[in-house]
């Protein structure tokens, strides 16, 4: 009975949750694509294509923005946090669908990344509570989303370290709950991030501000 429950949360529930998740995102993107897009029309001064490449690349080069140059620690936090998130999400696929690669060293490496993300998450949550400039713009969703990711990180790390059935069940239940919540919350920022970086690259590239400046 317990094995069947584990199988259910590992496979069936994940597939249901992922389908809902994908459907909601598809709907979001569809709604976005229906809207008018006021594109740049002025003769090019630089390259739109290079602008888009630069726009995405900026994220990986902390020296490309004053904000990340001034706050290098925040950029490191960002990197660790998203590496942790990546590892936690990866686990939801590899554990049920590709168990052969989940050797002990792989599990522990992923757990280490997730723990890194968890620590950064705690710092982010504390900062949001303490810093007046963040408090003034924070909503319950901001606090809850951070806390929810912390819970997700915690159960992921425990599942990866112990590989015990109880932690696994909890991990997959939390994952499914997460998949249902994410499209509604600020955690869905990465869907819009893709569009925002494209828009930014097209505009600032075409105008010769960030890439391919005209000689």
């Amino acid at each position, binding site marked *: 009975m317990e094995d069947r429950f584990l199988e259910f949360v590992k496979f069936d529930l994940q597939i249901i949750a992922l389908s809902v998740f994908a459907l909601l995102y598809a709907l979001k993107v569809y709604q976005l694509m229906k809207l008018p897009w006021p594109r740049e029309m002025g003769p090019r001064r630089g390259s739109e294509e290079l602008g888009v490449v630069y726009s995405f690349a900026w994220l990986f080069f902390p020296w490309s923005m004053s904000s990340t140059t001034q706050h290098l620690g925040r950029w490191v936090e960002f990197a660790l946090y998203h590496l942790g998130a990546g590892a936690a999400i990866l686990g939801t696929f590899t554990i049920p669908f590709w168990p052969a690669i989940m050797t002990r060293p792989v599990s522990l490496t992923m757990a280490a990344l997730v723990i890194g993300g968890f620590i950064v998450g705690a710092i982010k949550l504390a900062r949001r509570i303490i810093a007046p400039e963040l408090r003034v713009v924070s909503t319950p969703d*901001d606090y809850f989303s951070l806390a929810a990711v912390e819970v997700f990180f915690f159960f992921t790390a425990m599942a990866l370290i112990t590989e015990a059935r109880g932690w696994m069940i909890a991990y997959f239940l939390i994952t499914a709950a997460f998949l249902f919540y994410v499209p*509604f919350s600020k955690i869905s920022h990465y869907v819009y991030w893709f569009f925002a970086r494209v828009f930014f690259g097209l505009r600032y590239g075409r105008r010769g501000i960030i890439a391919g400046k005209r000689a």
Partner: protein
Amino acid sequence: MEEQKTVVEQAKEELEKRFSRTLAVAASNLCVHCGLCVDQCHYFVATRDPNISPVAKAEQVRRVVKGEHDWLRRIFPWWTGAKELTEEDLDKWVEAAFRNCSMCQRCVVNCPLGVDTPLVLATARGVLTAVGKAPEILVQLADAAIAREENLEFFKDFYLEQIKELEAELQKKVGDPEARIPVGVEGARFLYVPLSGAHTIMPAAEIFYHAGESWTLSMFEAANYGIFLNDPVRSKRITERIIREAERLKVQEIIITECGHAYAVSRWEAPKWFKDQPWNFRVRSILEVMDEYIQTGRIQVDKSRNPFSVTYHDSCNLGRNSGLFDEPRRILAACVEDFREMTPNRERNYCCGGGGGLVAIPEWQDIRLEAGKPKADQIRATGAEAVVASCDNCRHQLGEINEHYGLNVRVMGMAELVANAIVPNNGKK
């Protein structure tokens, strides 16, 4: 009889009209409230007020937009801070969008996610203009520019008389009684569009004279206050005067004087408004023309004629909004002996605080000068004796900052500096 709409209903309607793909992204869950934009804003750097950081300003508008368009916010508005628009909100938007933001775009280039905060606030400006809550002076200035075209015959003679006086000055300056400031010349290569005031005509006229340029002066001013209102109807109308003049005179290029927003409007925004009536002339800034003259040897300059130390202020509209970074630096390398970069510069440069139409609003002078402190600190750190800005609004603000913070620098335009450095050649005769 149809009931008259309330201000809030009109505002919501206007907001809906402006809801585009770019705005939908900027006003979505994209912003995670990380706060990295906070100290990239000169207002925050100067005041340390968390309520006027970019994210805090945009959030006021974003919460209303999301209230209309976000799923979760429609069901549980309190969870995400979403709210129904009220007239009180609109009054707060005036502060956030017109008073506490100069549309400098420094927050966008420093946002790891690419949240277009100025787009959100510019949308608020457009909505406020549509419901009659925009600063009256900006509306009046935009309308005055439109009225000038409508009453051109009334202004024409007086304007031509003034130009004749300037022409006499030019002749005296270059020592050539044949030197001209041409107006309304058909077939000229350039239509030069100045601002109000001789300071945007005389140095350019001198440079064109020495370059032996074929040019003609516009009957209109380049300034376009419609863009500060984010009012596409007024902005288009103001730009249209110049475009029609250029078409009538069959010029090859429109050259915009040293004015950041006027250049950005003509170069980047206007093509969107006239996409069904494309024109066949180029739009350039006088900066690009001066750079070309110097690089091609069409004018000779001598840097020893500007023996003082100079720093350069990148106007947000020319730099971060239009990509004119190298041209002014090449000019300065040729025209001054001691050029000192500000830190940071180029797309990272701080706004002087005078952008977004703020220099025209006397009642907000206090916050404008306060927000100019990072710029004052930048200038002071260079130890330069002069600061050059290629934007008239920036120059106005820098002049006030100079006085307010006791910087003791000379505020100059680039054309003035080039005109100083020119080696006379008797008009390439």
